[in-house]
C-alpha cells in the first residue's frame, strides 16, 4: 500500500452554540495507529464521524474545515466526494444488517460495484482472515459481540480502506474476543492501513499504538506519558489553537 496521508484543518463542532471541540490541525497517516482518548462526552465519536464524513463539522466562516488530500486543499464537502470510500468508521457496537455473515461482508463491495468474481474471492479471504467460515451462512444478528466485531472488521477489510476509525473496538467483549480483535487490528495495521482507535484499555492498546492523543475541554493534545499532555500537533505554529467558547 502506498503511503497515504490526510491533513484536516479547522475541525470545529458546536452544539447549541457550545463548542464541543476545536482542532486546528489533525494529520492521519497510513500504517500508523493512533489512540484517541477522552472522557465520556468529550466528542471522540463525533470527531471520528466527522473524519469519516458521516457528520458535518461546523462550517461557519472563517473556520471552514479544509482537507489536504494528495497535495490538494479541498473543503470538507468536496473532499468527501473523493475520499469517503477511503475511510471506514466502525461503531462501538457494530450494526449488523439483517442478513447472513457473508452478505454483511460483501455489502460494501456490492454497493461499490465490484465484479462477482472479485466479491467471491475477497469474501473467501475475509472469512478465513476473520475466522468466520463456520458461521458464514448464519444471520449476523445472532452472533456474539466478539463475532460481530470480527464481521465488522472483515466488512471493512475487504474494501481495503486507507484509514480505519475504530470507536471503542474492545468494549462489550470477553477476554478471548478482545484478544482476537486485537490480533485483527494488528494485521490491518501491518497491511498499511492508518488507524485511529478510541479505547479505555490503555494497557492493551499501548503495544499497538504509536501515538496517543487526548481530547479534553475541546482541545486535542498529544500524550507522551500519561501524566504529560502536550498540545496537538507538536511543533505546530501555523495556526493558533482555538480557545473554547463554552
Amino acid at each position, binding site marked *: 500500500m502506498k503511503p497515504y496521508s490526510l491533513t484536516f484543518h479547522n475541525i470545529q463542532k458546536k452544539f447549541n452554540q457550545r463548542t464541543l471541540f476545536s482542532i486546528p490541525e489533525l494529520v492521519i497517516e497510513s500504517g500508523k495507529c493512533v489512540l484517541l482518548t477522552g472522557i465520556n462526552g468529550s466528542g471522540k465519536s463525533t470527531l471520528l464521524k466527522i473524519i*469519516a*464524513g458521516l457528520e458535518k463539522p461546523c462550517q461557519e466562516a472563517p473556520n471552514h474545515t479544509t482537507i489536504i488530500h494528495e497535495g490538494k486543499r479541498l473543503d470538507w464537502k468536496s473532499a468527501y466526494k473523493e475520499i469517503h470510500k477511503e475511510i471506514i468508521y466502525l461503531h462501538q457496537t*457494530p450494526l449488523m444488517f439483517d442478513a447472513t455473515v457473508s452478505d454483511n461482508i460483501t455489502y*460494501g463491495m456490492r454497493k*461499490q460495484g465490484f465484479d462477482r468474481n472479485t466479491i467471491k474471492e475477497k469474501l473467501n479471504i475475509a472469512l478465513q482472515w476473520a475466522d468466520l467460515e463456520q458461521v458464514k451462512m448464519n444471520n449476523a444478528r445472532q452472533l456474539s459481540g466478539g463475532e460481530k466485531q470480527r464481521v465488522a472488521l472483515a466488512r471493512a477489510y475487504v474494501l481495503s480502506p486507507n484509514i480505519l476509525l475504530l470507536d471503542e473496538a474492545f468494549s462489550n467483549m470477553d477476554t478471548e474476543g478482545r484478544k482476537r480483535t486485537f490480533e485483527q487490528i494488528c494485521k490491518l495495521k501491518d497491511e498499511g492501513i492508518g488507524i485511529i482507535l478510541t479505547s479505555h484499555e490503555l494497557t492493551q492498546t499501548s503495544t499497538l499504538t504509536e501515538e496517543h492523543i487526548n481530547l479534553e475541554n475541546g482541545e486535542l493534545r498529544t500524550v507522551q506519558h500519561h501524566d504529560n499532555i502536550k498540545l496537538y500537533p507538536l511543533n505546530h505554529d501555523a495556526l493558533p489553537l482555538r480557545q473554547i467558547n463554552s
Partner: protein
Amino acid sequence: MESINSASLHAIDLLFSGDLELWNIIGISFSVSLRAILFAAPIAILLAFIMAYHRFAGRRVLIYIFNTLLSVPAVVIGLTLYILLSRSGPLGNLKLLFTQDAMIIGQIIISLPLILIMSHTTFQASDRRIWETARTLGASRAQAMLTVMHEIRFGLLAALIAGFGRIIAEVGCSMMVGGNILNHTRNIPTAIALETSKGAFSQGIALGLVLLVMAMFLNLSLSLLQGRGEMI
C-alpha cells in the same frame, strides 16, 4: 325485505356461486385501491425518509400539514375533488369525473398522509447506525436509503397495509368522484351503500363478508409483521 338469516345464506351462495356482478365489484375495488397504493407508497415513503433523515426549513410545518390531512374525512376529499374535476371546475377539461382514475386520485390523497406519517415514525425510530454503516461502506445516498428501508421493512409494510385498509373500505370519496356506475366505478363500499338503500341485503352482506375477511387478513398480517419486527 329479506330476513337476516335468508339474506346471509343468499350472500354466501352469491359468493361461492361465482356471481359475475358481485365478483366484478370486488375486482374493481381491489384494482382501484391497489393502483392507488402503488402510486401513493413511493411518494409517501420517499417524503417520509427525507423528513426523518434531513433537517430543512419547514420540516415541522410539513409534518403538521400531513398530520392534519390524516384526519380530513374522505367525503371532504371527495367533495374537493368533485369540485375540481366537475365540468365547470379548473380540471374539468381532463374529463376524469366518474372514472376509475378519479377514484384512484381520491384514494391516493386519502392514503398518502397515513402511509407518510406511519413511515415517518418508522424511519424516526430506526437505528441511525444503519445509514452510517451503509454510507461508510461506500453506499450512495440512494443505496443507503434502500438499505434503511430493507432493515425497517416490517414497519413500512405495516404502513402500506394500514393505508390499503383505509382506502379499500372508504365510501365517501369513491361515491362522489366515481359515481357508483355498475361494472365501471362501483366498488365494494359504494355497492354496499346502494344495496342497503334498496333493501337488498344479500349482496351487501356478501360484499361486507369480503371486506370483513380482508380486514381480518390484513390485521393478522399486520400483527405477524409487527411481531417479526420486534424480534429483530
